[in-house]
C-alpha cells in the first residue's frame, strides 16, 4: 500500500469504529445487556454473526458498545495528558536550565517504569472504573507528551523566524502561541495517534486483569476475561473481542504511520 492509502485506510477504520460506537443504539443490534438463558453460548448465525455469550447476550452488540469505553478512555487519557504534559514540555523547552530540570527529572521517574506496570500500580491505589483508567493512562502518558513537545520547542525556537519575531518585540506568550506551538503541533498529532493505540491496548489489558473497567460496563478486556472460561464451548467469546481490539489498534497505528510519513517525508516509509 502506498503512504496515502495506509493513512486513508487507518482513518476510515478509526472513523467507522467511532461512528459505530456513538450510534450503537441506532444500529439494528440486539441488546448488549439483556440476558436470555435459551440463547446462551449459541454460535454465530446470520442474525448474530459473533454468536452469543454465556448469558445469551449478543457478542456483536457488546463489542460495539464496548468501543464506547475503549475509545472514550483512550481519548480522555490522551487529552488529559496533552493538557498537562503539553504546557510542561513547552515551559521546559523554552526556558531550559533550571525550570527544564525541575520539570523533566521528576517526569523521568514516571518513564522509568514499564507502562503497564505503572498503570497497574496506579489502579491498585485508585480502585477500578473507566474514569480512573483514563487518569492512570494520563499519568503514564504525561512524560511522553512533555518530551515530544519539549523536543519540538527546542528545535523550533532557534529558527530564524522566531528570532525575527523576537527582534520585532513579540512577547513570550505571543512567541509561544503563534510561532512555536503551531510547529510543535505536528509531532504531537502523530504521538496522539500512537497514544490512542496504546490506550486501547492498556485499557483492555487492565480490564482483562481485573484492575480496569468495572462490570457490567461492556469492555473488550472484560469480555475476553469472561470468555476464557468458555473457550472450548464458545471460542467466539474470545475470538471476536480480541479481533475488535486489534482492529482499533491497527487503525490508529496505520493513521500514525501515515501521518508520520506525510509530515516527515525523510523518515522513508513509502
Amino acid at each position: 500500500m502506498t503512504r496515502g492509502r495506509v493513512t486513508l485506510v487507518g482513518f476510515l477504520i478509526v472513523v467507522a469504529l467511532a461512528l459505530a460506537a456513538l450510534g450503537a443504539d441506532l444500529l439494528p443490534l440486539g441488546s448488549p445487556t439483556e440476558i436470555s438463558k435459551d440463547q446462551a453460548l449459541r454460535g454465530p448465525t446470520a442474525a448474530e454473526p459473533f454468536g452469543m455469550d454465556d448469558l445469551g447476550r449478543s457478542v456483536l452488540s457488546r463489542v460495539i458498545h464496548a468501543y464506547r469505553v475503549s475509545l472514550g478512555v483512550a481519548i480522555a487519557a490522551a487529552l488529559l495528558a496533552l493538557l498537562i504534559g503539553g504546557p510542561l514540555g513547552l515551559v521546559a523547552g523554552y526556558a531550559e536550565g533550571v525550570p527544564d530540570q525541575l520539570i523533566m527529572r521528576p517526569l523521568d521517574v514516571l518513564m522509568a517504569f514499564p507502562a503497564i506496570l505503572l498503570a497497574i500500580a496506579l489502579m491498585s491505589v485508585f480502585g477500578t472504573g473507566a474514569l480512573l483508567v483514563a487518569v492512570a493512562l494520563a499519568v503514564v502518558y504525561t512524560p511522553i507528551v512533555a518530551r515530544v513537545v519539549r523536543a519540538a520547542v527546542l528545535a523550533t525556537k532557534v529558527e530564524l523566524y522566531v528570532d525575527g519575531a523576537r527582534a520585532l518585540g513579540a512577547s513570550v506568550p505571543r512567541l509561544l502561541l503563534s510561532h512555536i506551538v503551531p510547529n510543535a503541533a505536528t509531532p504531537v498529532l502523530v504521538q496522539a495517534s500512537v497514544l490512542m493505540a496504546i490506550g486501547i491496548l492498556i485499557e483492555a489489558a487492565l480490564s482483562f486483569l481485573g484492575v480496569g473497567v468495572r462490570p457490567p460496563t461492556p469492555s473488550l478486556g472484560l469480555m475476553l476475561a469472561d470468555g476464557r472460561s468458555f473457550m472450548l464451548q464458545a471460542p467466539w467469546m474470545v475470538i471476536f473481542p480480541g479481533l475488535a481490539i486489534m482492529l482499533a489498534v491497527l487503525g490508529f497505528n496505520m493513521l500514525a504511520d501515515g501521518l508520520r510519513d506525510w509530515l516527515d517525508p525523510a523518515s522513508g516509509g513509502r
Partner: protein
Amino acid sequence: MSSPWVYAARRLLLAVPLLFGMSVLIFGLMRLVPGDPAVAVLGYKATPEGIRALREAFHLDEPLPTQYLRWLAGALRGDLGVDFRQNEPIGRMILDRLPVTLELTLLATLGAALLGIPLGVLGGARRGSVADRTALAVGLLGVSIPDFWLGIMLILGFALGVGLFPSGGWVPISESLLENLWHLALPALTLAIGRAAVLGRLTRAAVLDVVQRGFVQFARAKGLAERAVLFRHVLPNAAIPIVTVLGLQVGYMLGGAIVVEMIFTLPGVGRMTLDAVLERNYPVVQSTVLVIGAMFMLVNLVTDILYGVIDPRVRRR
C-alpha cells in the same frame, strides 16, 4: 571525556537519583491508598489485635519519612520485609520467582530477534518488493495485536486444539530442561511476536537508511555481489540502532510478563505482583513494583551504555 568508561560511569551516576525517585514514588503511591493500610491488607479478617500487630510490624505509627527511610535501608540490604499473608520474607519470595520471569524474558528476546531481524532485513534490502510489502504488513499487524489475546489464541489453537503444548504451568530447569522449554514455548512466543514486529519495523528502517549511503553504492559499483554488500557493509552498520531497540524491547517484556504469566499460570514475579494487587497486599506490591522497575531501568541503562560503547558519536552528547 569521550572514553567509554567515563561515559558508562556518568550514566551509572545518573541512575542513582532515578532509582531514588522511583522508590519515593512507589512508597508515596502506596501511602495514597484510602483508609488504613493495615485494614486494607488484612481485609475481612481484620481484628483490632491483628491491626495493632500489623501497624507495629510495619511501623505505621511512625512519621512517613521515617517509614520511608526504614523501608529504603532494608531494601538496600536486600530485606524487603515480611509478607503478612504468607508469613514469608518478601525478598525470598521474589528471588524464588525471579528465574521464571528472567527465563521467559530471555527466551522471548531470543524469539523476537530471530523473527524480527530477518523480517526487517528482508524488507529493507529490497525496498518495495513483495517481501518488503509482506514484512511491512506483518509488522503493522504484529504491533497491533494485544499480547494477552494472542496468548489465549495460542492456547486455543496449540494447547486445547492440537494438544502440542501445555496450556500453562511450570517445570523448573533443574527437574527437566525439555519439559521446562516445552512449558515456556507458548508464553515466550506470545511475548515475542509483538516485540518481533517492532524490531522488524526498525530493522527495516535501519537497513534502508544504510543502503542509501555512499559507501554501499560504492561497494555495489565496484562489482561486489549483493549478498556480500549486505553482510559486509549494510548489516554491521545497521546493527547499532537494532541493538538499541532490542534492549528497549527487553525492558518492555518485563512489563508484558505480568500479563503472560497470568494467562499461562507461570509462577513469576509478574504474577506475584498482579496477585498482590488483586488481594490489596500493598507491602508486596510496593516491593515487586520496585524490583521490576529497577530491572527495567537496569536493562535500559545497559542498552544505553552499550550504545555509547559501540557508537563513539553518542558519547559526545
